[in-house]
């Protein structure tokens, strides 16, 4: 208990789907607030209301970082807004000890007409810092944001990257939090700046309790020592090991199948096989490093043609990770006769990082590049491992002789 800085018990929040009703409920809530009644009607849902966050419990000690993961609309940001005191819980209780800092909505309150320098002072006082303190730190902020040449120009002349850098610099340099909230702050800016931000955030986190919201699982696995997976406002999993939480999150991802093309070719199926054994279950889990093959069934409906077949493995954010160039044995483009074809393609060792993947297969005319058939989201599969690595491809363990 001594060093528990954040304690959340039975926290719930409801939202309303209909705008008109939401406005009217707002009026009612203000009325009952003035009469001194409890907020949230003791958990009764009115028409068109739903639980945006339901019964969340956790504690965070100093030096710990809790990763909040889940889909859009799972309640991550709502939870963070309650923790930050912007909106009130309908049920439950939040207790926090120490100074709260948040890297959320960087640059909110910037006035485009005023100069960067003026905006630094304004933004700082919105964050509760006085002028003397900012005077001491202003050079550090300007250097961090890398905008010394533009600091006396109006913010409306800044590029979007410069605005983000300035917003981040003001917040990150000035706060000295015991409790830190981070909401997708590292998703912006160019790569050099992101790395700089990561280092700053790591310094800030060292001695604080941190709640970290991100869709970037690599950052979650790197930063957090615990993960809370949210789905539809509820806790799906509270994992002491973030890679376990990341696995649970990937389980939630649905790779939707989608086909397109001229119809002169069809992709009938794609199945995985391990040890010459077809895997029949949907969304199979493969152990990292296992050897596997893909069995593709194609149907050629039209005249003979030369076709390139494209085989790609994509990750959960639809980024192509692996591509398998295919050709005829003599190196030429394959010539297909009308009818059904089955191709067995060895994939080698699946040394992908733990996560959720799917295939894209396309039949493309060699000369005209017309896509005759293209299917995505095929044969979604998961790769499981004991830990989540910071890399898309995980090579076998290398033993180093001492």
């Amino acid at each position, binding site marked *: 208990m001594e060093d528990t800085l954040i304690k959340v018990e039975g926290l719930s929040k409801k939202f309303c789907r209909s705008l008109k009703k939401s406005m009217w409920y707002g009026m009612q809530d203000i009325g009952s607030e003035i009469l001194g009644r409890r907020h949230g009607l003791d958990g009764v849902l009115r028409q068109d209301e739903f639980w945006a966050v339901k019964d969340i419990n956790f504690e965070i000690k100093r030096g710990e970082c809790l990763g909040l993961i889940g889909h859009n609309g799972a309640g991550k940001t709502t939870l963070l807004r309650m923790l930050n005191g912007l909106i009130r819980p309908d049920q439950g209780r939040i207790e926090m000890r*120490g100074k709260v800092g948040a890297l959320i909505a960087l640059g909110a309150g910037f006035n485009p*007409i005023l100069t960067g320098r003026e905006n630094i002072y*304004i933004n700082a006082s919105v964050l509760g810092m006085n002028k003397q303190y900012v005077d001491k730190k202003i050079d550090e902020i300007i250097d961090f944001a890398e905008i010394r040449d533009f600091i006396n120009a109006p913010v409306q002349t800044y590029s979007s990257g410069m605005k983000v850098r300035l917003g981040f610099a003001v917040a990150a340099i000035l706060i000295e939090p015991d409790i830190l909230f981070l909401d997708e702050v590292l998703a912006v800016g160019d790569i050099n700046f992101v790395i700089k931000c990561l280092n700053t955030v790591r310094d800030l986190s060292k001695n604080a309790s941190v709640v970290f919201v991100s869709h970037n699982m690599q950052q979650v696995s790197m930063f957090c020592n615990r993960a809370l997976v949210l789905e539809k406002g509820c806790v799906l999993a509270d994992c002491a090991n973030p890679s376990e939480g990341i696995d649970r999150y990937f389980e939630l991802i649905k790779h939707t199948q989608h086909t397109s093309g001229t119809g002169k070719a069809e992709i009938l199926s794609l199945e995985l096989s391990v040890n010459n054994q077809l895997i029949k279950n949907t969304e199979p889990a493969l152990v990292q490093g296992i050897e596997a093959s893909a069995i593709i069934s194609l149907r050629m409906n039209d005249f003979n043609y030369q076709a390139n077949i494209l085989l790609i493995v994509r990750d959960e954010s639809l980024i192509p990770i692996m591509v398998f160039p295919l050709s005829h044995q003599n190196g030429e483009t394959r010539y297909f006769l009308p009818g059904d074809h089955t191709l067995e393609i060895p994939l080698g060792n699946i040394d992908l990082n733990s996560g959720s993947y799917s295939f894209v297969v396309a039949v493309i005319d060699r000369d005209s590049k017309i896509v005759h058939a293209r299917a995505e989201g095929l044969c979604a599969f998961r790769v499981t491992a004991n830990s989540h690595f910071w890399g898309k491809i995980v090579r076998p363990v290398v033993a180093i002789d001492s």
Partner: protein
Amino acid sequence: MNELRVTIYTPESMLSNPLKMLREMLRDLIDSRELAWRLMVRDLSAQYRQTLLGFLWAIILPLANTLVWIFLSRSGVVNLSDTPLPYPIYVFTGTMLWAILMDALNAPLQMVTASKDMLAKINFPRDALLLAGIYKTLVNSLIKIALLMIGLIALGIYPNWGILLFPIGLFSLILVGTVVGLALTPVGLLYTDVGKAIPLLMQFLMYLTPVVFAMPKEGLPAILFQLNPLTPLILTARDWLTGFTPEYLVYFISVNVISIILLFILWIIYRLAMPILIERMGS
């Protein structure tokens, strides 16, 4: 280790612990001062930096209004009863003072609406917005008053000792304006109808206040003018400014006392309502 500040959020009504609430109100008000000042400087400098005429805009509208009314009375389109002051001065001071009241009245809703983005994402003392609105009105009023004084002296009206009391008149205009504006703010944030209705209603109310018309002597208008709580504000402020002795001092004082009490109550309501409103604003 030094004592850490404990923050607790629950669904309990903030009114369930009035002492704690009052302490927080005081603390937030003190915390708000510098932020309010910065917001005021931000808004005013941004506002004036984008204009050519700058602070002259503070008087252009009242001045135009004055000219319209002088024209109407000279041409005989409207028949106006005699005013104690020369009519141009009467209507000039009236519209200026009315403009100050309107500034104060519009400020809370305007400030909060303009800061929606910040409110939805950053936790800062919400009282700062109100304070900044008052500061802005005050600065704009001082510009107006300065130009008004120059105008008055140019027109041959020399103020007497009453001018020393005029700041009280100015403060009460801002006070009452803020009270009305603050009362409309919570509803106005949810329903934009309020913001649209204000100019209409206030225009109407202006004609029931001795701004461009003199106090009617008899009939229903006389009763309405007498009852209108804005009447003593405008009359008293104008009297102090132009060297007359105020007639409605008792009513003036009672309006102010009631407004101070209302301001306090409305401030509490504003604080209670803000989290609910921010939730409905979305982010």
